[in-house]
Structures are given as structure tokens and as C-alpha cells.
């Protein structure tokens, strides 16, 4: 056990740092144009150096580097410190690109991957429907092939970024007679197509970070299918296996916790600083036990990944662990805020992985901790996964009935 980086990696860190010092923030000619243009030029340089889009082959605009989790962590840390634009965030780069690399045709990869990893093409995800949440494969949005074109009808929900996305990757039922999972196809839909209606969905926080997307006779070129007809379920299961950064998630919990300690220094309880109150101290230290466990479990998973080992059940727990920490932080923050808990949330505070800014930000965090608990596989689904795949308990009755159908 040694938490230091080896000489080779320290050398790599120095190299990355001097690259960043030379190129970010841009100066001279590189500082011309909009901030998006500056970021795009910088990214091209960083790709050429092998620092960005590492898992994407050079033929598709990436830097095609061999997987190295420690380098990925160093890059994350150094780019974060310099506030430099690294890998494009968002669902296009994190979900669509790996899916296309694994299942897409050559022309699809050439057309969609380069602009997506440059940050020029934005995507939204057309998975959930009003009647299909955790039971996603029950989705009903239909796509029928009519004269070489898919005609899509249905409704998608929880669609982040639909108002700015150029394209949606969308699961549609194309084989209505086939069993549930076998009747789905994976389509790429141009969001400028006629028949698409995007309506913002206002959350309990008061802001609208999601949308509903209504699709009425939307015509999609027949070639915009990824994989074969009826294979959409399998296609959509591709995940980013490459260089997953196991530490990022726990760093968010850590930042949240440190924000709470600051809040306890700034607020009062029984006439003295909240942090001097023994109950608050107990609650903070209790929560810190979970936060540190999460953080060091991330170190362990990182080491396992570097050794080419699967994290097994531990890897299945990360989402539920950060969800639980978010819930505890929400409750403790509300206690610390006291009377300020009567005030509405402030909306500028939601930056994922960052501690809330200002006291109103904690009201936002309080509500968002619930959004996080639900999005991307609800806590109860996580518990099913841990129990069934991790502990080897029998599958759910409903799921069993279906698979025997």
C-alpha cells in the first residue's frame, strides 16, 4: 500500500501540468473568438497530446490511448485544477460514443463521434417514458418502417438537454409482436425533425432541468438505426468500460461534507456556533465515517481497476452509497439552517459534484438529493442489483415471470 504515485506517473503529471500552463487559459491568437471556439481549439490540442478522448480511436477524432486508470485520474485532477476543458461532459460523450464504438456502422462512427467528442454536437437520451421508469423495457414509443423511413410516435420523459440537443438516441418498439426486450431498436433522431415537441418539466426545486418530448409522426431515415432491428436493448447496455474514474463520485461526497462543516461554522444552535454543539459534532463525525469509507473504497476500486480486476459487489454500491450520503447531508443541512429553512431554494447553486453555494443552495441540495436518488437507476433498483447480482439472492418475482415467458 502506497498512496504516492510512482516516478513515471509523477513525470506524467508534470508533463500534463506544463502543457496546461502553456495552453490554458489561452493567450494571444488562441484567445480569439468565443469561449466555445477557444475551448474547441484547446481540446483539439489536448487530443493531439493524448490527454482528451483517450478511449476513442484516432480514426474517429480521439487520441486512441491504451487504458490507464491512473493517468485518467491525474488528467482529471490537473484539468480540474486548471479549469481547462477536458473530456466533453454529457450523455453524448459518456453514453452514445461508447455505444457507437461498440455497435455502430463505420459511417455512423465517422459522422457522429468526432463532433460529439469535440463538444460541437449535443445529445439527449430518449429512454424513460411516463409508463416505463425502472421497468424501462416496457416502453411503448413505436417506430414503424414506412418506405425506408422510421415513423416514430410516442412520448419520452426526464429528457435533460432536449431543448439544446441536436440529436436524441432513442429506444423505440419496432417489433410489437416480439417479447418485451426483443422488440426494441436503437434510433438516432434529429431533434430538428418536424413532429417533435419539447416541453420543459418543472421540478420541485422550481427550475426545469428536464423535459418531456412528444414525438408525433417523426420521420427518421432508415439508416439511423444502431445495431439490428430488435437488438436495441442489448445495444443500449453498452457502458463506458474504459477508464472509469472511480474517485470522481466520492470526491463529490467529500466536497459536500466539507461544505456542511463550513455551514456548521457559520450557523448557530442554542446561542452558540452550531459546530460547538455536541449533537452537531456527533452527526458530522458520523457522516464523515460514511464519506471516508466511500472515498477510500474509491481508492481501492481504482487500484483494482489498475490491476485489471473487477470491483465486484463493491462497484455496485457506489451509487447507493453516494445517494445515502446525499440524504444524510440534506437532513443535517436543514437542521443547521434552522429558520433559513423557511426560504425558497436559490437556483444557481446546483452544480453536481460541488458543494452548494450560499445557504439557499443547501435548500436546493436538499431537494436535488432526491433527484439523484432516483435518476439513473433508483435506490430501490440499486438494492435489487446488489441483492441479486452481488449477494446471489433470487430474482424478483416479476422479472422471473417475464424471463420465463
Amino acid at each position: 500500500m502506497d498512496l504516492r504515485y510512482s516516478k513515471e506517473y509523477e513525470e506524467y503529471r508534470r508533463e500534463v501540468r506544463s502543457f496546461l500552463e502553456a495552453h490554458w487559459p489561452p493567450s494571444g491568437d488562441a484567445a480569439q473568438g468565443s469561449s466555445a471556439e477557444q475551448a474547441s481549439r484547446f481540446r483539439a490540442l489536448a487530443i493531439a497530446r493524448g490527454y482528451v478522448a483517450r478511449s476513442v480511436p484516432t480514426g474517429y477524432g480521439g487520441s486512441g490511448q491504451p487504458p490507464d486508470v491512473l493517468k485518467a485520474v491525474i488528467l482529471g485532477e490537473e484539468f480540474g485544477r486548471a479549469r481547462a476543458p477536458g473530456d466533453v461532459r454529457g450523455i453524448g460523450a459518456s453514453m452514445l460514443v461508447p455505444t457507437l464504438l461498440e455497435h455502430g456502422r463505420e459511417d455512423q462512427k465517422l459522422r457522429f463521434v468526432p463532433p460529439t467528442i469535440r463538444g460541437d454536437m449535443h445529445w439527449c437520451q430518449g429512454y424513460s417514458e411516463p409508463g416505463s421508469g425502472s421497468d424501462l423495457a416496457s416502453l411503448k414509443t413505436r417506430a414503424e418502417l414506412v418506405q425506408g423511413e422510421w415513423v416514430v410516435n410516442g412520448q419520452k420523459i426526464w429528457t435533460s438537454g432536449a431543448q439544446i440537443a441536436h440529436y436524441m438516441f432513442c429506444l423505440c418498439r419496432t417489433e410489437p409482436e416480439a417479447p418485451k426486450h426483443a422488440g426494441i431498436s436503437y434510433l438516432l433522431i434529429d431533434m430538428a425533425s418536424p413532429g417533435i415537441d419539447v416541453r420543459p418539466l418543472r421540478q420541485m426545486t422550481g427550475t426545469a432541468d428536464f423535459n418531456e418530448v412528444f414525438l408525433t409522426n417523426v420521420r427518421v431515415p432508415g439508416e439511423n438505426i444502431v445495431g439490428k432491428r430488435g437488438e436495441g436493448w442489448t445495444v443500449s447496455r453498452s457502458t463506458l468500460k474504459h477508464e472509469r474514474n472511480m474517485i470522481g463520485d466520492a470526491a463529490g461526497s467529500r466536497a459536500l461534507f466539507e461544505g456542511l462543516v463550513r455551514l456548521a461554522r457559520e450557523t448557530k444552535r442554542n446561542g452558540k456556533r452550531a459546530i460547538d454543539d455536541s449533537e452537531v459534532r456527533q452527526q458530522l463525525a458520523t457522516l464523515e465515517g460514511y464519506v471516508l469509507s466511500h472515498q477510500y473504497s474509491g481508492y481501492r476500486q481504482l487500484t483494482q481497476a489498475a490491476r485489471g480486476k473487477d470491483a465486484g459487489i463493491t462497484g455496485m454500491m457506489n451509487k447507493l452509497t453516494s445517494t445515502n450520503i446525499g440524504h444524510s447531508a440534506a437532513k443535517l443541512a436543514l437542521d443547521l439552517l434552522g429558520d433559513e429553512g423557511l426560504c425558497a431554494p436559490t437556483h444557481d447553486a446546483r452544480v453536481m459534484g460541488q458543494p452548494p453555494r450560499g445557504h439557499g443552495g443547501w435548500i436546493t441540495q436538499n431537494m436535488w438529493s432526491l433527484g439523484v436518488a432516483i435518476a439513473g437507476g433508483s435506490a430501490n433498483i440499486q438494492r435489487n442489483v446488489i441483492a441479486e447480482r452481488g449477494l446471489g439472492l433470487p430474482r424478483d418475482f416479476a422479472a422471473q415471470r417475464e424471463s420465463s415467458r
Partner: protein
Amino acid sequence: MNFGLSDEQELLQETVRRFLEERWPAQKLRALFDGSSGHDVDLWRAMSELGLLGLMVEEKAGGAGLELLDLALVAEVLGRFAAPGPFLGHSLATLALSLGGSGAQKERWLPRLASGEAIGTLALLEPGGGWDPADWHASLLSNGADLLISGEKLHVPAAEIADLFVVGLAGGGLALVERTSDGVRTEAIEAVDRTRRIGRVAFDRAAASLMSGGNEAAPRVRDAGLVLLAADAFGGASRCIERAVEYAKTRVQFGVTIGHFQSVKHQLANMAVEIEPARSLYWYAAHAFDHLPAESPRHAALAKAHLSDRFMQIARDTVEVHGGIGFTWECDVQIWYKRAMFDRAFLGTPAVHRERAARLAGW
């Protein structure tokens, strides 16, 4: 950046696991739990042969010269098997001697402790309460060239069979007292955890020798103890979950195994999520003790508080998953339940260590 075990460390855990599977079957555990002494001489001897009793002792004194992380990895496996006996107090007394003993004291005792020929233990708590050095009142007085100790210590592990007591003194120092000295009286206390018996030790002008580095060693020994308890709790809690999962896969109600019911599955998943990430917390606390001394006291405190709390709750949940049978003496779950009670209380409760952690953070 390497936060993982070495091949040797994995082998060490595997060796101890196999050893206990063979040498420490459930019948023996049950018999010992119900028996009078709480100490299995054959098991102790076999642990000695494996080298587990001198793991952190320097090689020239017959030990293995390893670190706290290695010892904690062993403590985890012992916790899994609810291995009984004086291991914890012995390991800590031995560490105290290694860290704070004089040359002569080490020479006299370390080889015998490392081999397990002599059993050591730690006598800290006093009737007034408190595990902290500031709470100790036992005192030394000079009698010519000799030192005599007077005082009373409670909840001393393996008090009835220990050969050597490392005793906490007023002012935070440590003294060595041999069982054979005149004026040493021990008396068993009915212990909740019958795998780790405790007793009362009264010193009445008994011959003692001061440990020259006792004041520096005492907080280190406390931190090591907290880490070992955290490791034991991790092992015990993991075993509880395995038992609960096994039971859920075999117990049939309403025509199916109860593991089919989502209420049971979710309870088991929650138990697993409560404990598994905390493995890394005790690893880190042990690593900090060995290599990051500035971080050690706080991590030891948080690891002990967190893991002993988790173990207690998981043991409760394990009883619940078992239903009525889980509440009986014949169901082994009660043994781990009581191990959890020991891990929680010994060297101070979670609340005590959370308050210490708060102070150490400057809150």
C-alpha cells in the same frame, strides 16, 4: 498510487482463513462460548505456530516485523470466525512493550510474548470510567530501589490467564506488572462476549516496572487498538451478512425461500452497503498508523466509531432476518452479536471517539 493488498498480505489472510476453517469449527466455538475459561489452549498454540502472536514484533525478538495493517488483516479474519482468547489484549500489550519498553524489558518479555508462551494484556479502564490516559489514576511509589503499584483496573481482557499486565498510570504513562508479583489479585467479570473474557485486577503495592517510553506509546497503542477493533468489526459484520444471506436462501415461507421477498432482499442489500465500503476505512486507518502518523489518531477514532456501530446494527439485522431462531442461544448469531457489543464498548464507545475526531479536526 496503490491502495490494495500485496500478494503476501492476501496470502496471510487466506492462510489464517484456512487455518480457522480447519481448526475452529462451529462446535468448538459453541463449546468454548458455554465453557468456563474462554481460552482454547490448542488454538492459542496453533496461532503461535502460525506466527500470529508476534506479527509486529521485531525479527530479532522472534517476531515477523510486520505492520499494523498486517495485524489488522489477521484481526478481520479472527473476527469472521469469532476466534476467542487473549489475541487483542496480547497484541496491544506486545505493541506497547515494543514501542515504550526499555531494552531490558523488551529482552525479557518480547520473545516470550511473540511466541505466545507468555500472555500479555492491557489494563487501562478504572472504576471511575474512561479509557483516556487522562482518566487513569493507578500510581507508582518507590520502595527503596523498587517501584510498587496500587490501583484497580476493570474490564481487563484475559485478566484471569494473563502473565503480564501493561497498566495505565496516572499522568498517562505505562507500567509492567507480572502476574506472579505479590499484591496482584484478579477476579473474573461476567462478560457479555464470552469469546473475549474480561476481569478486574487489583494492584496492592505490587512490584512494577515503569516503561520509559510509556507516555509516547500509550496513545499509539490506543490508536492501534481502535484499528484492530474496527477490523474485527468488519470481519464479524461480513460474516453476519453471509449468514443472513445463506439463511434467506434456505428458509422457506409462503412456499418460497424468504430471499425472494423484496423486503428481505433490500434489508440484506442495505446491510452490505453499510459495511463493504468501510473495509477501506479500516485499511486506511491501519495504513495511516504505519505511514501517515499525523492522520493516524483521527482515522483510528473514526474507523472504530464507524465500524463498531455498523457491526452492531448489522448483527441486529441478522437476528431479524433469522426470525425467532435468531433470538435463541443455540443460533450462533448471538455470538457475533455479543462480539459487536464488545467491539463497540471496548476502548470507548463510538460517541466518545466521534467527539475526539471532532476535536482533532479543529471543529
